[in-house]
């Protein structure tokens, strides 16, 4: 009797554990690495990077902990083993190289800039402005008094920002217009490529502190953006023309319906 009870108890326990595993499984987001699973259950310093990373552009684009810090995201026991390529957090001087493994062009821009040249001499690294885990999509909003004043006066940065602001606005506007046209079946591939190239050139200016160069480059970008805008204006004008023709066609059909109805009534 006792043995049967034990068997029944062990079976019930098995069923309960299976049920628990099945019901808990959906709570853990599918695709979470062991890094997130482990750090997510910690407190204090261990937990600190999880939430900021979850709100970052890296998370949006599927760049996880292991893509920067190395290690094995599938094996919790050896996730942080140097044998599995774990790098940990870089030292200050190594930060540009750490981020620059992916952001190659931006690393070069940074190293050529006054910020990059001051590396190790009190100058900022990537994470000083962009943060280490809550990295957001870059916009001109990053250049602001609060950020810049941490190290130097905002005067020069203000001039840089105002020189770039118009380009930023134009880029955003053109992107939105392209998206709208794409949703209406317009082939925007070529214009998107051109805009992408200009956006890249513009982003390369983000690490520049030479105001003269920024003004020159911004003017060149603005000229190219103006050409793209011209193309979009032409497409919009064509679509407007189609609507005018459409209004006439609808009016014509309406008039035909009225006339035909009047003609029909003359026979009745």
């Amino acid at each position, binding site marked *: 009797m006792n043995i049967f009870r034990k068997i029944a108890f062990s079976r019930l326990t098995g069923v309960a554990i299976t049920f628990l595993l099945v019901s808990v499984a959906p709570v853990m987001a599918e695709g979470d690495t062991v890094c997130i699973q482990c750090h997510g259950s910690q407190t204090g310093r261990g937990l600190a990077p999880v939430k900021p990373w979850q709100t970052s552009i890296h998370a949006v684009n599927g760049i996880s902990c292991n893509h920067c810090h190395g290690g094995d995201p599938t094996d919790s026991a050896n996730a942080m083993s140097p044998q599995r390529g774990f790098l940990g957090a870089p030292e200050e001087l190594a930060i540009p190289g750490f981020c620059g493994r992916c952001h190659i062009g931006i690393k070069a821009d940074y190293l050529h800039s006054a910020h990059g040249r001051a590396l190790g001499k009190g100058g900022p690294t990537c994470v000083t402005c962009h943060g280490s885990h809550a990295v957001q999509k870059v916009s001109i909003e990053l250049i602001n008094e609060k950020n810049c004043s941490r190290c130097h006066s905002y005067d020069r940065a203000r001039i840089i920002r105002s020189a770039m602001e118009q380009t930023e606005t134009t880029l955003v506007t053109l992107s939105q217009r392209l998206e709208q046209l794409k949703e209406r*079946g317009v082939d925007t591939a070529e214009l998107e490529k051109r805009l992408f190239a200009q956006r890249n050139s513009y982003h390369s200016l983000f690490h520049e502190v030479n105001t003269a160069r920024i003004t020159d480059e911004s003017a060149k970008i603005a000229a190219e953006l103006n050409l793209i805008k011209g193309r979009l204006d032409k497409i919009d004008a064509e679509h407007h023309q189609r609507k005018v023709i459409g209004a006439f066609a609808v009016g014509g059909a309406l008039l035909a319906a009225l006339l035909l109805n009047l003609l029909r009534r003359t026979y009745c």
Partner: protein
Amino acid sequence: MFLFRKIHNWLNVRLGVDDLVEKQLTGYLLPANINRWYSLGSVLLFIFTLQVISGVLLLVYYVPDADKAFTSVNAIMNTVPYGWLIRLCHVVGSNMMVLVLILHMLSVLFMGSYKRPRELNWLSGFVIFTLVMAISLTGYLLPWSQLSFWATTVATNSAGAIPFVGSYLVEFLRGGALVGPYTLGRFFALHVAVIPIGIVAIIGLHLFLLERIGVSTPPFGLSDTKNPWKDDRFRHEDHPGGIPFFPNYLLSDMTSVAIYLVFFLLILFFASNIFLPKDAFIPANPFQTPAHIKPEWYFLSNYQTLKIFPNEFIGLMVQGAGMTFLALLPFIDRGPERHPLKRPLFMVCAVGGILLWIGLMIWGHYS
């Protein structure tokens, strides 16, 4: 003028043109109380003709190859002169054809025109309806966009719920386990050749039956609204004292076509995106399922019905039973009364059915 008269005489001697005109046009009398709803058939013929013309024009540039289909449709929309107009005509026209066809069937239902001796008219009309749904479904895949690819995946998947043969049927429809280049080939052949030929043949039969049996009298404005048909011998339903088809009713038909054109052109020029959402302009990607993929509006109620029942097979059976009931309605509803207000059971079922269909459609859209 002299030349025209000479040609007329030449044809008259050989073909009896005057007699033909008298018999089929000026002397062809329709019920005196005929209404605007009767012209929906002519509107449908007009739409179908426009679909054939725009479809043939699209065929000139469309490439039925999975690697090139999207690019070719993109080129039609952007580089072919007036290609956008032709494609939008075809897309908007296909949706309008389903809508007008449903209205035509509803008018026949409410006026009791499906009743004896017109069972075959109803049945042939029902077959046309099924073929129009099939041509719409097959045409939907051809642009090879995200929308078409995933909507077809969902639609063909439901056939898999049929026990025993389901998986074979899905594979037969797709030409493989998944929607792919072979599905496109099959759907293209069905869309441009098999189904249109079928539709033309059944339209021919439908018109022959209309001509042979005669146009039904609407039940409105009459003291006796009962079905006058006697089950003893064939009689063509004549309408002495009625109105001539030409010019009177032809003008009514043309007015209806012009009214249809107003709505058609309004959607085409100002709101075509209601039939072509964002996903219709993204190339098909079998590895990326869009977040909220939905079938076309006329399949939304079917889609929602499948979701309501715990088992897709039950959902399919319910739909099959509903469609069979509708197809066989003239053999089930054999009462002589034709006026809708004198048929309370019919009215409750019909209005309830329409509301249920619309409700399921809205539910399917927002679910």
